[in-house]
């Protein structure tokens, strides 16, 4: 073991037409961790993964997977990795067991071993009963699981998961998370992309926030949260007539811009120091501005993301 990194990339670039889908991505991902790519649709997450998984050749920069160059040593890279793409890469017309037997044979198992391996995986992934059904009759969660199972026929040293839980119900999502955690405990490095901040928060040891093909922030979930201060203060006034006065008072005490939300009398602000909040609320009472509700939320990755990408709070509200 000469190198502790599963993935090392320098200045990766991919251009589609006149658009720089990936625009100079640097990565150093140590072995054995879950690394999350967080970003909106079209940020360049999938393109980056497809380059690392040898499906696309980069237009610039270089990357190594376990010390193998992704372009000149693509074959060696493929022996160590597995990819579960955004779209199910399982043959819908075939049954679950047929799909896995074919992939097991391609991995080098004999016919008999392939059948055993397929069965073992199906049972382990809670698909034993559905083994002989055509995959087109599977639910979304079952499809996702067989897709992941298909990536694990020979346990890879590095697994790429492209939006593994998009469109899944909470129970199926938790099952996918469980699979990822178990896999990591067993020593596999996982690189996953997600649009869900909660998912990155729950699963990833380190997170890269990607937007417009660039990594705009990188760190642990805690580090990223710390970068936006103590959290967000929400204040609900009893009477929206007081809104302007209340905003002025809060602004003065908290030394930070106050946002008014679309519903009347509802204010929010990013707070750097929690102790200022008590004073500010006290001042509101002193000025006879009744407050019906307030909360100081710990910063969520949502807020981190929005702060970093500069999207407005209103849009965030609409998304929820």
């Amino acid at each position, binding site marked *: 073991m000469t190198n502790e990194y599963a993935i090392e990339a320098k200045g990766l670039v991919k251009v589609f037409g006149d658009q720089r889908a990936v625009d100079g991505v640097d990565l150093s991902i140590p072995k054995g961790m879950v690394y999350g790519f967080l970003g909106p649709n079209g940020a360049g997450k999938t393109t980056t993964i497809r380059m690392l998984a040898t499906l696309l050749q980069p237009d610039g920069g270089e990357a190594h997977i376990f010390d193998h160059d992704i372009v000149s040593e693509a074959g060696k890279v493929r022996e160590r990795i597995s990819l579960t793409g955004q779209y199910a890469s399982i043959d819908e017309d075939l049954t679950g067991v047929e799909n896995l037997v074919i992939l097991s044979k391609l991995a080098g198992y004999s016919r008999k*071993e392939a059948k055993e391996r397929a069965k073992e995986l199906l049972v382990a992934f809670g698909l034993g009963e559905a083994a002989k059904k055509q995959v087109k009759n599977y639910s979304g969660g079952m499809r996702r699981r067989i897709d992941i199972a298909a990536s694990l026929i020979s346990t890879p040293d590095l697994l790429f998961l492209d939006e593994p839980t998009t469109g899944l119900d909470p129970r199926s999502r938790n099952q996918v998370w469980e699979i990822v955690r178990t896999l990591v405990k067993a020593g596999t490095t996982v690189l996953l992309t997600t649009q869900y901040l909660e998912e990155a928060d729950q699963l990833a040891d380190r997170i890269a926030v990607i937007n417009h093909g660039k990594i705009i922030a990188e760190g642990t979930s805690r580090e990223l949260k710390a970068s936006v201060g103590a959290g967000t203060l929400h204040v609900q006034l009893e009477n929206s007539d007081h809104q302007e006065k209340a905003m002025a008072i809060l602004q003065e005490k908290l030394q930070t811009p106050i946002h008014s939300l679309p519903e009347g009398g509802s204010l929010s602000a990013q707070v750097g120091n929690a102790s200022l909040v008590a004073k500010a609320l006290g001042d509101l009472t002193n000025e006879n501005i009744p407050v019906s509700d307030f909360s100081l939320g710990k910063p969520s990755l949502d807020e981190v993301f929005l702060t970093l990408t500069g999207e407005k709070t209103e849009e965030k509200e609409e998304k929820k």
Partner: protein
Amino acid sequence: MSQPNVIKEEQLRQAITSRKRPERPSALTTSLTFSSRALLRIKHVPEQLFDVTVFPIIFLLMFTYLFGGAIAGSTSEYLQFLLPGILVMTVSQITMYTGIDLNNDIRKGIFDRFRTLPIWLPSALVGALLVDMIRYSGASIIMLTLGFILGFRPEGGFLGVIGAIGMILIFCFCLSWVWTTLGIIMRSEKSLMMVSFMVLFPLTFVSNVFVDPQTLPSWLEGFVDVNPISLLVDAVRGFMHGNVTVEAIGWVFLSSAVFLIIFAPLTMYLYRNKK
């Protein structure tokens, strides 16, 4: 509600921590595995055999009775002339579906997985083409059987018929790479169909399948004479009628080789660098 699919952690841990890595399979093994995949697809979606069963029957009946009287004076005489040609036309048109299947697989994302496997890359395509050989043979046998019932009598005998089918299979295997190339390039099934027809219709109709080229205007005759479909029809007619020449066989091999040499590497290049 159906029984929930329970995942037991211990089972899961065991299944996904098996670090066993079998020997890398040979190119032959992986190609045959892809063939078995294609056969399983036929098992589950038997409708896809329409093109090699119903098509040939309709084509043969339609053209024999439609043109027979007008062109040769009688349908039975025309059948002697037409059957080898229409066999070539039908099977070479069926080759188009190879590209459509590939195009579908690519759009569904299945090939992303195959392309990240440490296997001999062309095996996915070669395996599918091997099964297509079975499909083409099936179509040929169905047409010949029907032709025989209608009164077709090959003077070349059984061996002549086998030789004729052999010619068709070799040519169609090579021609299929044109469709795999197009199957990778085209974005949708519709546009792929359109382009395929645009290539196939002139190629199969402007040939010696239906008429003797000597009846054509000279500029058209010039094209018909070098059309690879005509070259194949010449060899197939020769085999069936027992008067095949080495020259005719040579032309089929040459035109097949040209298709293969240009389009097989082109397909693989595109396959490897697909966006």
